[in-house]
């Protein structure tokens, strides 16, 4: 029997604000346990939350990027449940009035675009981290209170690959907007997935299970693959799917049951009395909107037309906002955008991956790259020299014309100088000259190589070939 799979995702994204959601504690990662804490984020008696407005702005930006409706009136609510990592034993979140309603993210399925609908985006506070030691447990509250944006999708995905692609697309959009680092190792982006299957032909969704705390896109992919197979097996054996929460074990590659959800947990939501409702000034919201970056897909299309690049190039360049910014920074100054693109996709990316650094850390500025391309185009240097100059700039920065001059790397196009090199090469290699004259046309390449060696790579190769052939004709 064939089954239709329905997958929905709740993606939690830590926003990259300087301070926590409701206090002024630092949000930095990796500090010793319980050093980024205060009475507010530890839930001490009498402490009160104060909203981080920057987190609200970031959440609204995310909503704008995916076409959400931005709520003029939103509020925070308390969600009550007891857990040691929750300082107040209620989480401040948004229940029925989130900042962003609706929205959509596009992914490609079999070469065709598919829309994944987003239900809402709301803002809440992250919880602490339980730690277990031999014979005791502890809680690190450094993470507690970091602003956490939750993006809830409709169950629109029908395969683990689609879920993976949706996560990738979300990450691209979020990093484009510069509101989160989306670093999966540091737990910036985590997700819960829910998944159900139903026999083909059945319209209502099957019973869903929820998989909690998937810390990477790969984990989401594998957990879903396992879970779908497990559900199929249950149904084919004549069984029924139990609505429950399951945990993914990345070591065994299996999901296992955490607790059966007989009915929804009663979180006893009610409006947070310590915070006033948020009435967003729409003029301010429009001001934020005007600062929005272009969506990756839109930018890709524009780059194709504006710079006359192949679709493949544009796709690579927009994969990361900073990379696209770098490319455009150079291409805008250049008469040869395709050459810029070639440089970025080969030399630049290779250097970044070798050194494991970000494009923003590259010492070769976009302007320098565009100048380097011009030097090649006007034949001041050849490609070999250009790569040398690029390597120098990677180490020390600087601008290419200066480096070429300093190091005497300019291409030699002087007839007299080249003439002398060519004659010397012919005199030192009479056998090659004879071979050429005897019909072995490839022998000319050897002689070109000799000339280039003598000129330390600076001779204009076209001139060398022309002169050699002229002289050997006679």
């Amino acid at each position, binding site marked *: 029997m064939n089954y239709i799979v329905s997958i929905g995702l709740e993606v939690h994204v830590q926003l990259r604000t300087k301070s926590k959601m409701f206090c002024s504690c630092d949000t930095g990662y990796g500090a010793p346990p319980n050093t980024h804490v205060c009475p507010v984020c530890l839930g001490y*008696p*009498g402490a009160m939350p104060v909203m981080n407005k920057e987190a609200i702005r970031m959440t609204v930006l995310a909503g704008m990027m995916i076409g959400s409706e931005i709520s003029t009136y939103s509020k925070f609510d308390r969600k*009550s449940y*007891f*857990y*040691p990592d929750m300082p107040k*034993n*209620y989480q401040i979140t948004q229940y029925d009035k989130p900042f962003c309603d609706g929205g959509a993210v596009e992914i490609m399925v079999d070469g065709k675009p598919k829309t994944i609908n987003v239900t809402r985006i709301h803002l809440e506070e992250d919880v602490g981290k339980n730690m277990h030691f031999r014979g005791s447990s502890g809680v690190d509250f450094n993470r507690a209170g970091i602003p956490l944006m939750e993006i809830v999708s409709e169950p629109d995905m029908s395969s683990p690959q689609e879920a993976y692609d949706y996560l990738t697309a979300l990450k691209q959009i979020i990093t484009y907007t510069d509101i989160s680092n989306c670093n999966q190792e540091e737990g910036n982006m985590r997700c819960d997935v829910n998944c159900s299957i139903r026999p083909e032909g059945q319209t209502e969704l099957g019973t869903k299970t929820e998989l909690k705390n998937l810390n990477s896109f790969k984990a989401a992919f594998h957990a879903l693959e396992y879970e779908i197979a497990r559900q199929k097996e249950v149904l084919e054996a004549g069984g029924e799917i139990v609505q429950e929460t399951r945990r993914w074990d990345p070591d065994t590659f299996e999901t296992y049951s955490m607790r059966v959800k007989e009915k929804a947990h009663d979180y006893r939501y*009610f409006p947070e*009395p310590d915070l006033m409702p948020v009435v967003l000034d729409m003029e301010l919201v429009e001001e934020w909107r005007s600062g929005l970056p272009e969506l990756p897909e839109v930018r890709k299309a524009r780059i194709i037309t504006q710079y006359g690049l192949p679709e493949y190039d544009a796709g690579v360049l927009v994969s990361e906002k900073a990379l696209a910014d770098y490319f455009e920074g150079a291409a805008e100054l250049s008469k040869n955008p395709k050459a810029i693109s070639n440089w970025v996709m080969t030399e630049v990316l290779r250097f970044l991956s070798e050194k494991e650094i970000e494009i923003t850390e590259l010492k070769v500025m976009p302007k320098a790259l565009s100048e380097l391309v011009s030097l090649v185009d006007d034949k001041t240097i050849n490609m070999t020299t250009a790569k040398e100059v690029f390597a120098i700039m990677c180490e020390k920065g600087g601008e290419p014309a200066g480096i070429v001059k300093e190091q005497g790397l300019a291409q030699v196009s002087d007839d007299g100088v080249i003439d002398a090199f060519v004659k010397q090469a012919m005199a030192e290699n009479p056998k090659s000259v004879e071979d050429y004259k005897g019909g072995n046309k490839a022998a000319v390449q050897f002689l070109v190589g000799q000339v280039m060696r003598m000129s330390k790579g600076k001779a204009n190769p076209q001139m060398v070939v022309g002169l050699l052939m002229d002289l050997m004709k006679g």
Partner: protein
Amino acid sequence: MGIEISSLTVHGALDALSGGECSSEELVRDVVAEIAKRDAEVGAYVSVDEELALEQARAADAARSAGKCGRLLGVPIAIKDVLNVEGQSCTCGSKILEGYTSPYDATAIAKLRAEGAVFLGRANMDEFAMGSTTQNSAYKVTHNPWNLDCVPGGSSGGSAAAVAAGEAIAALGTDTGGSIRQPASFCGCVGLKPSYGRISRYGLVAFASSLDQIGPITKNVRDAALLCEVMSGVDKMDSSSMDEPIPQLAVDLPADLKGVTLGLPKEYFVDGMDDDVRRGVMAAVEKCRELGAEIKEVSLPHTKYAVSTYYIIATAEASANLARFDGVRYGKRAEGATDPIDMYGKTRAEGFGAEVKRRIILGTYVLSSGYYDAYYLSAQKVRTLIRQDFEKVFEDCDALLAPVTPSPAYRIGENLDDPLQMYLGDICTVTANLAGICGLSVPCAMTESGLPVGLQILGPAFKEENILKVGHAYEQARGDMPLPEILKR
């Protein structure tokens, strides 16, 4: 030394200090001596930190001789045990906060500290401010200085008893449904509940966040005005604090009430009200008329729903506010738990008293899915109607006059097994919290059995000057009230 502590006011103490009649250190020693004399009987304090108070007093004296001033420089004040003072305990009258030391100052405390106030000790209270008798404290029962067999009221009963028994010059209380005004009335003190948002709640351990407010319990209206003024103001740590101008409350208090319109809300003069209370309040009303006020009867028609509305909202908020007391991070942790859930259960079972448990269960119930609309949501709607009732009468009235409670202080142990009867005693006070307006309790009479009766003066939100003017003018015309017998012993 010629200072009579039992009737010493804040203003009196400031005059004595600036006139060089005494030092702050002497003042603190005298007050501590009064505490030593009487507190075994009264039970106003959970703890007194004499050394720390003397240290602050000496610092105040040094500051004064260095020519520095402060609006409360050197004046010792009792603090209700629900306000965080850095380095001190803060039990909230509960076993569950045993061993907890505040790592920070509440904003109101920081403001008092900045003006040079000295913090004497921690005043007893009903556990987590839940109660109107101070019998719900896990530490001790506080007795009414006027009659030790009677309750001092609550939940700020320790604060009111301390002021009435001469064990403090003034005190801080908190008022969620009458917890400043009612004990002030029972103990013959002045009690001010400022408007919601007037004084930052940061550092006040929350009972019901949308109702709680810090305020002073003092020996006269002018002192209450001064303390309120010092603590007022918007605070970036409390989003519900309001950026309203702070009038010079303590200085500009006239002696008559010409041109003032005062309303008498008929719903507050309930059937079954104590005769002495009715007589006392009506005599005060007449006094205000003599002072030039126009008196008119008004109606607040939704008053009859106020008590049930209050108990739904207050318990709902409390059920979440008190969830943090779990034994994980501070305070008491029960022994012998096998897992976190067991630890929560045992810690909370051992740490909370019966009334707190009752209210947590009530609050959990009214927020439960399926009941939320019928209880919490309906209560919020009624709350709006109650607020609108006040807005309407304040169109024509500068303030309202009413009793604080239907009866004077009752005997310790009375009604203890009948929480519903106890809750009904809050009928005249909970409305001000629900509406966010300000209220003042001023002693106005003595019952035949020798217990004080309070006059309640209610004013529009952020119009503290209205009620303080009426209170002060009335207080001047009323003349001195007697002192409790216990002070003469």
